[in-house]
């Protein structure tokens, strides 16, 4: 055999073993998620929680909503937030140097009045220009500040302004269900150990009907790009995070919706303004800090708690988003590379960080290489052409199996999409996701890896966003 054939042979073995490893890991996570969800659904009912959380006895929560050029959605979001069932909370909107009418819309909608800034900045941020409150909407405070160059800076300003021991970080284009805070707060109260953060599910609101900050008809969108994202989110949240939480290796609390213990966040210095994935980076830093202190803790995922958000509806915006997420992943792994596979950080270091590196980082690269190597191998007769095609189909069907498993999880648990036609479409797109869309996301992530390695700067970029209404 020539050297070239040896190389292709070695890669083929590696690809088979790697695919087996990745698929086995994901299938294991999915099976764990099935059992965890089943247990979870049978241990809580909403009625009991409503009784509890209308009471003033509950620990109060500050909701922090960073907003940068969100004039299209911010008023609806704030209205939704102000309808929470939780009895003791405040809402702090941070206008992060918006250049559009975000502050004007808020002032008009909620009759804001300027007040003095009386709190201290425990975490350094860009300067605060003014603080506003509303006599009518007594729970609402708006902090108007200069743009600090990152969402992290805005959230830190909100943390500084907050009065309560727990804070919930949301995006300004998020719609919380009315029992969202309530559900997210339960793990903070009922676990015997320390819970520094709890996370909810993020779902795509695209295609659903929203009026005055309330989602009242959940429906699938029309565009395939949006449906593909719905399927991805189901896989990621219902299968992935449920399993990770059950193993206590959760390393991300989505920036769109998460509840945090304020003291521990301040102890680690708040969100990092230089991090591209500030939500992921914060949890990793908290995890590291608590491990080093030897304090037992648990980051909890609450699967029935939903935050609805508008996902990108065009490929350019989606591409930028995915590239930014991937670079955030790489950056945080690099900054905390001492945790990867380190027994000093327990299961989080070995399994949590390990799978992120082996699957999320390496995966796109290996798969992209496979798309190049297999056809070339077929061309040079290192492998038979039908072998390349069959191998491609097997890996695709392995992917569709995961997406369909996530749909089955959804059907067995929350059934948010009720109409039969919607289920048909979800099944259809779960299969065809792997013929085009998956490859596109792979390319974005591979490109992000290459840009990261060559140290090219990246920013959030323009995020074109549809209004809810």
């Amino acid at each position, binding site marked *: 055999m020539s050297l070239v054939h040896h190389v292709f042979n070695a890669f083929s073995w590696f690809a088979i073993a790697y695919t087996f490893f990745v698929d086995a890991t994901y299938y294991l996570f999915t099976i764990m998620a099935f059992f965890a969800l089943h247990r979870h659904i049978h241990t809580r009912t909403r009625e009991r929680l409503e*009784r*509890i959380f209308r009471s003033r006895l509950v620990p109060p929560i500050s909701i922090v909503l960073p907003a940068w050029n969100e004039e299209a959605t911010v008023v609806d979001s704030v209205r939704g937030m102000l309808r929470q069932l939780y009895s003791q909370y405040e809402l702090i909107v941070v206008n992060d140097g918006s250049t559009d009418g975000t502050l004007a819309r808020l002032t008009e909608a909620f009759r804001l009045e300027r007040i003095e800034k009386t709190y201290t900045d425990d975490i350094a941020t860009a300067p605060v220009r003014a603080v506003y409150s509303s006599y009518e909407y007594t729970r609402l405070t708006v902090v108007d500040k200069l743009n600090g160059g990152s969402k992290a800076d805005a959230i830190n300003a909100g943390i500084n302004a907050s009065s309560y021991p727990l804070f919930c970080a949301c995006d300004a284009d998020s719609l919380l269900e009315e029992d969202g805070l309530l559900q997210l707060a339960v793990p903070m109260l009922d676990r015997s150990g320390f819970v520094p953060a709890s996370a909810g599910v993020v779902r795509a609101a695209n295609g659903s009907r929203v009026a005055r900050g309330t989602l009242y008809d959940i429906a699938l969108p029309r565009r395939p790009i949006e449906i593909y994202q719905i399927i991805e989110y189901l896989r990621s949240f219902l299968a992935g995070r449920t399993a990770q939480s059950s193993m206590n290796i959760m390393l991300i609390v989505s920036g769109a919706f998460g509840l945090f213990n304020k003291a521990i966040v301040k102890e680690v210095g708040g969100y990092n303004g230089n991090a591209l994935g500030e939500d992921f980076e914060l949890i990793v830093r908290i995890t590291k800090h608590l491990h080093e202190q030897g304090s037992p803790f648990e980051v909890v995922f609450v699967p029935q708690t939903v935050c609805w958000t508008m996902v990108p509806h065009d490929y350019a915006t989606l591409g930028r988003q995915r590239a930014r997420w991937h670079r955030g992943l790489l950056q945080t792994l690099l900054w905390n590379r001492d945790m990867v596979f380190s027994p000093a950080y327990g299961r989080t270091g070995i399994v949590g960080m390990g799978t992120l590196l082996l699957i999320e980082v390496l995966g796109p690269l290996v798969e992209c290489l496979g798309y190049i190597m297999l056809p070339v191998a077929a061309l040079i007769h290192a492998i038979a052409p039908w072998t390349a095609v*069959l191998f491609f189909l097997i890996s695709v*069907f392995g992917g569709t*199996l995961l997406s369909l498993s996530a749909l089955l999880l959804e*059907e067995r648990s929350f059934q948010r999409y009720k109409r039969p036609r919607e289920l048909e479409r979800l099944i259809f797109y779960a299969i065809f996701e792997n013929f085009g869309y998956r490859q596109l996301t792979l390319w974005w992530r591979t490109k992000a890896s290459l840009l990261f390695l060559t140290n090219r700067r990246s920013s959030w970029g323009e995020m074109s966003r549809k209004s809810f209404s």
Partner: protein
Amino acid sequence: MNAHQLLTPEALPLALAAAAGANLLLIALIVCNKIARDRREIRAGTVRTSVINDVVSLLEGDREDVVLPPPRHHDAVVALDAVLSVLEAIKGDSEAVLVTLLEQSGYIGTLAQRARSRDPVRRCASAMLLGAARSAQGAAVLFELLENDPAPEVRTIAAEALGSIGDPRSVPLIMKALAHAAPFQQLRLAGVLVAMGAAAAPFLEHALREPGEMPITLVLEALSEIGLLEDAQPVLTLLRHASPEVRGRAATLLGAAGVVDSVPDLAFASRDAFWFVRLRIAKALGALGVPDREPAYAAYFAVLQHLLLDDNWHVRRNAAAALAPAGAQGEAILRSDGSAFARAALQQLR
């Protein structure tokens, strides 16, 4: 061995067939699950409507008897839920009719049996349903669970269930459970005591005098929600407690219980270093309203005028809110203050 020797003409198509077959099986499972669930929902809707109609006819005297599905029948869960939904909405003689129906149909007995299950989740579910059923037979089982069940969650749910029945004999047991419970259980047990209202108030007041292991802040908040206080003296003492959380809640209780004579003590306590204590004092004063006697009357306006100049805008806002409905004197203070909160408070009044 070469990799493509593993990927033989026989192996690969078989692997592909297996992968495709697994996908088809999943699709079939998803579809069957959906069909089964939709059918269950339709069936449940039919059963529920039928049971509710029958039960309402029974209560209106149009029927003498209603036959529910047997407790172990597959429609039993829906039937029970339907009866409980009607029970939730009624009181008095009608309640007794439905409770008797459930007892005679064997539902209470079955739930009582399930409350002795080895599975704590089953015991929890049974306890909840026994509470909703408001049966005396069921209450006996709940007392047993509250006193003896090894699982804290089951004991908490039994307490909640007894609270929804409103049986005052459960209060001492709930107080005892509260002292040793985990934070979440304490919250829920305190909620049960709040729901008990006047029946629980004396026990909570006793806990203020002799706290032992009782969480004082929770006791204070629970009493504030109930709004009853026989003896204010222990609470006035707590205005000087070492913990600002306790001081603040003591102020809230005095306001909620309408202890007008505590205004001078609240005025003194308003010099507290912690803004959230001063906030609770401002809110308590607002809840009390303008006293109708001295020295409380003079102290009332003096302290609110002082709080209107507080460093913290939460405190100032609530002081303005308290002054707004306080008659001509309150309005005069707000006008002379002229701040944004004072103006907004006056505007709200108009």
